[in-house]
């Protein structure tokens, strides 16, 4: 392992902003998609119960 400390890990050799924005955005999008699909499913099932 090449990281001496937590600060060093977050700094990413000076590229922290770029690296963490990339990973953060990816995580956010994936979690967001899962939540969106989940809500869509709940809504679809509710509507099919009411509307049928």
């Amino acid at each position: 392992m090449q990281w001496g400390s937590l600060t060093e890990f977050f700094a990413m050799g000076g590229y922290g902003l770029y690296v963490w924005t990339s990973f953060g955005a990816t995580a956010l999008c994936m979690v967001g998609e899962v939540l969106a699909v989940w809500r869509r499913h709940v809504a679809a099932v509710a509507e099919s119960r009411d509307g049928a």
Partner: protein
Amino acid sequence: MGIAHINWFKYSSPQAFYPLAGRMMPWFAAAALGLIGVGLYLGFFVAPTDFQQGDAYRIIFVHVPAAWMSMFLYVIMAAWAGLGLGLQARPSFMMAQAIAPTGALFTFLALLTGAMWGKPTWGAWWVWDARLTSELILLFQYIGIILLRASMDDLRRADRASAVLALVGVVNVPIIYFSVRWWNTLHQGASVSMTASPKMAATMVTAMLVMMLGFWMYSCAVTLARMRCIIVERERPPSWGKQAATQDVAEARECSGGV
């Protein structure tokens, strides 16, 4: 029971596929979580710092898997669309419909993480290079397919029109893939190829491939979940309604333009 004894055609009906997808989903989700966890560990703690690009190169562990998924998912979506057109099969169109948003998401992520990598290494967030431009066009294609479907009330026409658009647009995928060879681009060539030995350290390649497998599993899980939404939205099986009669279902199908 051997695999040969399973009647696979049974699952081509949405009503039978719905519970099957529900049973498969958690396995794909668990595999995605596990693989992405291992991939992140390998990517941040095992793979060494690159001697040229420093730690900025670590963006590769999300950038390349996202870019590959954007192309894989497009091809798979177009294949389902083509199958739907050929067989007049509603479930095939529904699969294509279920894949599109995830493909668009990965295309967006490939572009965003690419910008994050371009700034420190090239000095620019964006350049009108063949690879970047063709990937941007792919994003517009996904959005176009989703919007075209959304713009039509008649589901049958929406299925067919978006399928034709998806099929026509598949020509862009080889253009994206070979763009780094056909044109003189700023974007670097393939990091991993079937014919040549990798240009990166083995741990870097492993981390990237594990992340990609994780993204594959994620895509399977979320596509199956969306497929279930679409089945409920479009099919409305009688057993889910309080007192739905067969007539209701027939009506719903007529409205949705189903066969």
